[in-house]
């Protein structure tokens, strides 16, 4: 097996928040099959906080664990807090990631940020936050 931490294995085996949100407030998609990892994040926003975060991921164990932990970390955060989640933070939260998995699979924060930006751009055009 790849040299994954216990936490990575736990999130890979029991990923939290898998799924889609019907009528999401924002959606973010990153990655591509060339690299081998693709993630779609779906968010529900209430009072400028992430009330619900769900994801779907195509990818290796690391990609799935990253998606899962990002969804868990982000849930309940304000949008600004969530925008500050970095790959380093994600990897630390997971107890580390193998070197060769760091870049390609550690895309969860990007997908989340994309979803938040999607939400923000929509609310801007609608003219006001929920």
């Amino acid at each position, binding site marked *: *097996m*790849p040299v994954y931490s216990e936490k990575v294995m736990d999130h*890979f*085996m029991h*990923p939290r928040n*898998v799924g*889609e949100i019907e009528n999401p407030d924002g959606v973010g*998609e990153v990655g*591509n*099959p*060339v*690299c*081998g*990892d*693709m*993630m*779609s994040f779906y968010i529900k926003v209430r009072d400028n906080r992430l009330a619900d975060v769900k994801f*779907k*991921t*195509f*990818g*290796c*164990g*690391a*990609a*799935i664990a990253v998606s899962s932990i990002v969804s868990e970390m982000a849930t309940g955060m304000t949008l600004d807090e969530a925008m500050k989640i970095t790959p380093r933070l994600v990897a630390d939260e997971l107890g580390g990631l193998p070197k*060769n*998995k760091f870049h*390609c*699979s550690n895309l969860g924060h990007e997908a989340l940020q994309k979803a938040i930006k999607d939400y923000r751009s929509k609310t801007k055009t609608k003219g006001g936050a929920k």
Partner: protein
Amino acid sequence: MRMVYLDNAATTPLLPEVREAMLPYLGEAFGNPSCLHDWGDKARGAMEEARSQVAQLIGANAEDIIFTGSGTESNNFAIKGLALAQQNKGKHIVVSAIEHFSVLHSAKTMEKLGFEVSLVPVDKSGVVDPHDVEHATKKDTILISIMHANGEVGTIEPIAEIARIARKNKVVFHTDAVATAGTIPVDVNELGVDALSLSGNQFYGPKGVGALWVRKGVRIMPLLDGGVQEGGRRAGTENVPAIVGLGKAAQVAQASMPARIKHLTQLRDRLLTKLPAKIDHVVVTGHPKNRLPGNASFCIEFIEGESMLMLLNMQGVAVTSGSACTSRALKASHVLIAMKLSHAIAQGSLLFSFGLDNTAEDVDHVLEVLPPIVDRLRQMSPLYSKFTKQTKEAK
């Protein structure tokens, strides 16, 4: 938990009789074959017997067998050593796009040294068209290297036909037989090649030993310079126990080859036919008929190989995947891409390679544990949800 090893393409276990044959040389018979005393004599005698055994396996003369440290070394030695030895005649090398990296990257190194390399394509089944090789061959072509069979998708190449083209054009022809020697019949004269690589750990022999056969009269530059071992063609104290093991493995392989092929083909065909019946959207990769007896390779659509492999491992099943994440090179298998599969599909590759110890129950175990794993990962996959939505919309 039932433990099912289905990764015999990566490496095979040692046969007990091979281990037995090796043990004396890990014990009292520890001599260096270059030495002129009884200890040396004993080691040298055993090594020469092994050389004959390996030669017999491939229908060659013992004196033309050079022992190496791995299939990779044999391939590096062949590509670099043959190219350098023929460079007065030209600097063009032809290899297929699906060669093992030990051939492809050696060719790349030769490019850095001023050689030119042409990659011959393959069709959807991974077959090299001899006409393409003929097409790629130029006046200054000095070396063609096409593998006998690809270990990842199992496809067996038309080596004898390609050899005729090489001979017609007076070009030295090497074949990487690491995936075939000891597994299916390999005869250097029937194949008509000039050089051939093989490796011990692919047919129940030891790791750390391979061989390169070079036809008498074909010049090759050493890759490992130093002492005069192996007729001055490969320096370094010989790995006697491993060489003895390789010889024994060759002898046993030759004797039991028909039975082995029959056994492996049954297992392979069972999985090749039953898996696509159990799981939708499965692509069988490699040639439907001309394939290695133990090779059942697939791409499972919409999901990625490493995650399947990890979940299979939790169920005691050891397989491999040519997907980016497992290769550590983080690229989808160059073999599958050369076969014109999309990256998304290539990422879902799974290779089941059967060995002598496997049984029909092992196949059935896979058929039982794999479908729920695929379901589970597809439920997580954005590609799969897109596909199902599109299908619904299409209805």
